[in-house]
């Protein structure tokens, strides 16, 4: 089992705080090499979690009209069109005298993004109300009945996942009678819960359930990490262009993701930070520096005060 460590290096509270109710850490392995961009994960997530519609805006960004993860979008499929071959042997030599030149290589990357459920979760660190907590499954969840909408967690997330829900106040714009639609402009923070309620009931999360190609795999994190290593090895053997794991390393800036990815290009290509760091990692250092500055300031003031007397 993966031990979670606080950024300060103190022993992880999880899973010991759950005592006999502790569960193995659960997560997602999103394998983009089999993602067909159907967006069933987005719809299943919204259906299960009763998330409001997020605007009918055509972006022109390939087939991505969702654009980002936010309070009203907990799964987001990115579409990236590239003039690159899918496989390293993907370009064929052209034959002399043929009627048409060989077409430029083209590939269309698709990736279903989600909250990373970080080992060192900045959002959780800064939440003053205890609304954000780590569940017995090791996932990071916002409790909607405790969140007061302070928004501290929003800048604490290195991925921009945490977001406050702001809905128009107009009484007649509710598209359908969803229960949550009544609560307008609540300002609270909403994000992927890794379907905590479904997990409690012994079910896999809605997105993984809906995924027709098993691009989204749900399971025990240790097992997923092992599976991902094997998968990467196979893709490398098969000559896939740019295959790499993202967020599987427990030694990265957030201690590894609970929901990690197999990508086919650098993370930046998908709009993901290449080297995410939990902002609270530097908190002790920051406080030490602040304390030192305060001391220095005080000393200076005292010195100047004393000096002024002299």
């Amino acid at each position: 089992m993966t031990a979670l460590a606080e950024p300060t290096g103190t022993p992880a509270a999880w899973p010991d705080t759950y005592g006999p109710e502790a569960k193995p850490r659960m997560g997602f392995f999103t394998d983009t090499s089999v993602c067909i961009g159907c967006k069933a994960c987005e719809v299943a997530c919204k259906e299960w979690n009763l998330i409001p519609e997020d605007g009918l805006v055509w972006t022109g960004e390939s087939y991505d009209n969702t654009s980002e993860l936010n309070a009203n979008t907990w799964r987001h499929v990115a579409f990236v069109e590239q003039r690159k071959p899918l496989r390293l042997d993907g370009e064929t030599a052209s034959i002399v005298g043929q009627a048409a030149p060989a077409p430029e290589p083209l590939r269309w990357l698709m990736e279903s993004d989600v909250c990373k459920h970080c080992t060192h979760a900045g959002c959780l660190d800064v939440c003053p109300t205890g609304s954000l907590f780590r569940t017995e499954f090791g996932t990071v969840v916002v409790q909607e009945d405790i969140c007061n909408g302070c928004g501290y967690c929003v800048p604490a997330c290195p991925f921009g996942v945490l977001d406050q829900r702001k809905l128009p106040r107009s009484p007649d714009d509710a598209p359908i009678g969803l229960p949550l639609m009544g609560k307008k402009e609540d300002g609270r923070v909403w994000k992927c819960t890794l379907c905590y309620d479904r997990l409690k009931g012994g079910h896999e999360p809605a997105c993984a359930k809906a995924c027709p190609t098993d691009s989204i795999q749900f399971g025990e994190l240790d097992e997923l990490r092992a599976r991902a290593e094997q998968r990467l090895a196979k893709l490398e053997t098969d000559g896939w262009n740019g295959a790499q794991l993202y967020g599987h390393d427990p030694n990265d800036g957030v201690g590894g993701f609970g929901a990690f990815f197999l990508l086919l290009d650098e993370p930046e290509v998908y709009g993901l930070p290449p080297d995410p760091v939990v902002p609270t990692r530097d908190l002790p250092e920051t406080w030490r520096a602040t304390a030192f500055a305060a001391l220095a300031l005080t000393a200076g003031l005292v010195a100047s005060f004393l000096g002024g007397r002299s």
Partner: protein
Amino acid sequence: MPSLGTSFGRGGATDHQQDLQNSDCIVIMGSNMAENHPVGFQWVLEARERGAEVFHVDPRFTRTSAMATRHVGIRAGSDIAFLGGIVNYILENERWFDEYVKRYTNASVIVDEKFSDTEDNEGLFSGWDPEQGEYDVTSWQYAGTQVHGAAGQREQGFKGSQTKGEQAGHGGHGGGMSHGNPPEMDETLQDPRCVFQILKRHFARYTPEFVSDACGCTVDEFLHVAKSLCDCSGPEKTGAFAYAVGWTQHTVGVQYIRTAAIIQLLLGNIGRPGGGIIALRGHASIQGSTDIPTLYNILPGYLTMPHTESYGGLQGYIDQTTAPGGWWGNADTFIVSLLKAWWGASAAPENDFCFDYLPRIDSDNSNYWTIEQMLKGKVKGYMVVGENPAVGSANSRANRLALANLDWLVVRDFVEIETAAFWYDSPEVESGELRTEEIGTEVFFLPAATHLEKDGSFTNTQRLLQWHYKAVEPKEDCRSELWFYYHLGKKLRERLKGSDDPKNLPLQHLTWAYPTSGEIEEPSAEAVLSEINGRDATGQALSSYKLLKADGTTACGCWIYCGVFADDENKAARKKPHWEQSYTALEWAWAWPANRRLLYNRASADPEGNPWSERKKLVWWDAEQGTWTGNDTPDFDETKPPDYVPANGAKGPDAIRGDRPFVMQADGFGWIYVPQGLVDGPLPTHYEPHESPFESPLYLQRANPRRQRHTDLAEDPYNPPGGQPGADDFPFILTTYRLTEHHTAGGMTRFTPYLSELQPQMFVEVHPELARLRGLEHGGWATIATARSAIEARVMVTDRMRPVRIGGVEHHQVGLPWHWGSRGLTTGAAANDLTHMALDPNVHIQEVKALTCDIRPGRRPHGGGLRDIVAELRELAGEASERATKTDPEHTRSTA
């Protein structure tokens, strides 16, 4: 699907999607499977993960292309050239599966000496009648046989009727069979008149260079597909094709599929694991709606609809429907059992089992014919159920004008779709062309229950009947189709109770009593399924169509579904997952016929009954037990030994030899060459689309000569084709398609927020070079125009719309999704406002996958301006086509 029907015997996918995991090579053409069949596509990915080649040959680079091992871009409308190239490659390089071809296909059969090929007649087969614009198929027959059986009789019997040959893919071939063999054969395949040699000559010019020039792909790309497919075929390996409406929606669509059938027969890929042709259907139960048809020209189980000009009575019908050999030899048991299911005790031998109660067709009564009659004021009423022709039918503008010409219109749907709202919300009302107060159509909108609000079955793309249960009661006035038709029937019968007018007898005598439940008196869907399955005289549920009788002692609503309710168990409701059984999952739901998952699976064994290889074994002959056995239900008489030879004069299934896997065909062969059943040729030929910027690369005859056009219909004008004056005004190739995020004409998706937000606006896809050429800006607006109308869309500039090089010149293709209309949460122009109603002659399906257009930057004029530019365009096209008609060597005829 007469293409698959004539080639193999049944109009359905030959395989199940799960079996694609066993393929060594999958060619997806005419289909965007990942986007439109994402669930089934998992098996394609499974095959890819196991090392299979997955080719997507398509005009566009789609989400399917993204997942394929290789995408080959071709020009929309050039698929027969590409596939014909593969046929030629197989023949030139001797790559065919020799024993399979010789023993299981009609390659060795000698064809009538009067037959002559398109290669000899500048694109016409023998028998072309320029006056009628039709073929006389006599010269297409096997030597020593006559046109006979269901298909042939229709060909000869009803000159001038549009029903010729259609849906007659059940091997109605007869006369002169000798011990199960056609009269003249050459098993060495050397006779110049044998099918194999005819095929060789027919496709000889489809060289890789020809393919490259006609399709716009490179020689190398073509050769890679052809070679890989051949490498992945044979005793040890199999390859599969998957197609959808990208093949069917052409004026020569049936022949597209036929070309794939020829390839698969040559390579021995039918009836074997990982082989086959998967026909991907576009709706949850479109397969079901042809099995128990919503079509005008067939009865349940693909029985021919009686025609006014034929069939004196039941015996006449049986004589002409029954094939001399194969399972269609038992057609008498199918029709009599159907009549017993419908008219019960009233159906007796002395009244021909009420055969005369059946309605009869007298002409082409297909969808577009009906629209034409509305425009001409001859059809006054219209019931639209589960369709949205104001958006989804070709030339939707003409469809809306037709709706405005009705007396009454009934629309049953979940929401008030465009077809129900056309009278106050349409481009024509906006432009002032139609005025609401002047439209006389009385519109009735009846809200429908969703599949979650009713019990029932879907018959999916692989002939699988899967049961679903009601989750919640329908709200307010929403009702299921079953409820609607049952109670409508009850009301009609109530009204006719005292009538002694004989014309009312069919309704009065109809068996029309189903148990109902609940407050709304919902009829029992299971009772209907049970009736479809059928019962014997003692009331026992039938277990197989083999038990059906022609003496009135059995009743069965659809012979191919017989067995779905065997032992009074709803087998469609079985839900044992595949991981608890073999991959064929015979205990998950139920597939017609007889729960077979892989059709013609006798072909998975060699002529002696042994598997071709261990790797590809499925069904084989167990000599000790004297029976066929294996991992699927054998698609063969269980106890007929491989060496069985029928006696002369044997009938029905007994006339099929023990080494002939295609048991629905009179000769038991897979048909490389189709002597009858199709109206536009025994072999496929590359014809240009009705509208394309090109002349034929092969013949004087440019397009399918037999295609249906509406040349006297002002509402359906055509862009001048390549080589004709005016063609330059429409220089680009237009293709239409669907997106994962929306479903067909949008009635189920544009009204739901979670899907609307994923594709919230109508757009047009163009290549960067075309954008430069026409000054189109990514994210801006464009106006796309044809002779029918002009629409506007947001511009998506993308490398995925590749230009094609035809005849050394680069040509651009314009892509339009067709989901949008004026209603719902996300609205937009209907792409079908641009499309025309020229049709495939076999199935009357529209050609919306390849036509021509122009594209300009900016929005179209709104208000009256639209009428002005449409009028301008029509004038332009009109003048040009007038000029064209004078010089057009092709025969032009109206469907009227």
